[in-house]
């Protein structure tokens, strides 16, 4: 893109409800957009409402659509919840450093996602499951509030049955009709077949979940620098100019949002300002 601060108008192509507050929509990429890397995000702009950082949740190989999965929480995201094709929105991107997929080649790829944190990890699944021979094993451990809030469930079950994905999910609470796991995501690490010494982990979810997951992974013997996390802070420019997203010495929009865990661990207890 020529000017990274200038939004391009793009047209919504599809809109789909995932759960009560979460929805997925696709837009046609602007000309010159090129490709994105798994874990990168776009800034989505609605005139009069504002702009929000939203991860790209679709297939990096699909050059015809940009997919976003959004939880309606504030101004922009609630307004997006109310839009339908062919609405037009402003888009800038892609921004940020994505997941280090190359570091996982030849090794075990372990993804841990909590709630909407699955959105930025889904592109990793698209990519890894398209070339499974590059990894010893691909595992997804997923935590959600309730069974109804598990994102992309049909696709995940298909990947599990057809594409060799080791997939375990757990929820915080469920009705007696649920046949799956109830508990916390950190417990899934023990249930899954993984070889900690060979594992490269990519973790995305609420910050407290990142800390607990990193701790459990280390206890099991996963090397600290093989644990990668994606972080969130309020963003404005997305390009490293405004300083809004600063975390210690880092600007999340430029140096992140994906970091090796040891680099950001000291700052994770710090309140945003």
């Amino acid at each position: 893109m020529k000017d990274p601060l200038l939004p391009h108008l793009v047209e919504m192509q599809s809109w789909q409800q995932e759960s009560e507050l979460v929805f997925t929509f696709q837009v046609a990429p602007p000309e010159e957009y090129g490709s994105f890397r798994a874990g990168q995000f776009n800034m989505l702009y609605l005139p009069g409402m504002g702009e929000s950082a939203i991860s790209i949740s679709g297939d990096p190989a699909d050059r015809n659509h940009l997919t976003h999965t959004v939880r309606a929480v504030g101004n922009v995201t609630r307004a997006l919840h109310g839009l339908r094709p062919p609405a037009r929105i402003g888009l800038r991107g892609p921004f940020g450093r994505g997941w280090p997929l190359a570091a996982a080649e030849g090794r075990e790829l372990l993804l841990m996602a909590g709630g909407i944190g699955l959105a930025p990890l889904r592109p990793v699944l698209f990519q890894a499951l398209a070339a499974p021979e590059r990894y010893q094993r691909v595992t997804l451990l997923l935590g959600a509030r309730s069974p109804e809030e598990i994102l992309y469930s049909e696709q995940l079950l298909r990947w599990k049955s057809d594409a060799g994905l080791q997939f375990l999910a757990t929820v915080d609470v469920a009705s007696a009709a649920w046949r799956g796991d109830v508990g916390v995501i950190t417990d899934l690490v023990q249930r899954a077949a993984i070889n900690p010494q060979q594992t490269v982990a990519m973790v995305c979810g609420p910050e407290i979940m990142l800390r607990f997951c990193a701790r459990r992974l280390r206890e099991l013997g996963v090397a600290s620098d093989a644990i990668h996390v994606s972080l969130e802070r309020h963003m404005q420019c997305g390009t490293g100019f405004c300083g809004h997203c600063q975390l210690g010495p880092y600007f999340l929009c430029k140096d992140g949002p994906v970091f090796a865990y040891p680099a950001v661990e000291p700052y994770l207890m710090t309140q945003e300002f």
Partner: protein
Amino acid sequence: MRTVGDELRAHPFFAGLSEDCMQLIAGCGEHVVFRSGATIASEGSAANEFYVIERGRVALQLHTSATGALLIQTLDAGDILGWSWLFPPFRWSIEARAMQDVHAIRLDGKCLRGKCDTDPAMGYALMQRFSYIMSQRVEATRLQVLDVYGRANRS
């Protein structure tokens, strides 16, 4: 066929216990099977046992008038079910139900309580192991109560 003692010796929960302890504990154990849907323990009933789950999934649930049965944790192969046998008033605080056919080792808590009273070293060693499970459960409950996935913002 592996005996109860063999199974327990191979279980990480009992790792580090002396052979004397293991023999005492194994002497209080027996293999049991619960068919899918069976109630293993009901809330408020006498807790005189705990289980080492070998196969199958167990639901821990609470009943509320508003929501009916609420599933708050599941346990699978390798997990330990039940610690109410250790503390007065020795009553189950939760309902445990087999979600699938469950194969387990039932350990007689009454018999173990007696042995722990006469052998404090064994009592301490067992208490340490159950305390660890309880601390893990407290940590998990904190995360569940925080409702981390439900919060508006991921950070």
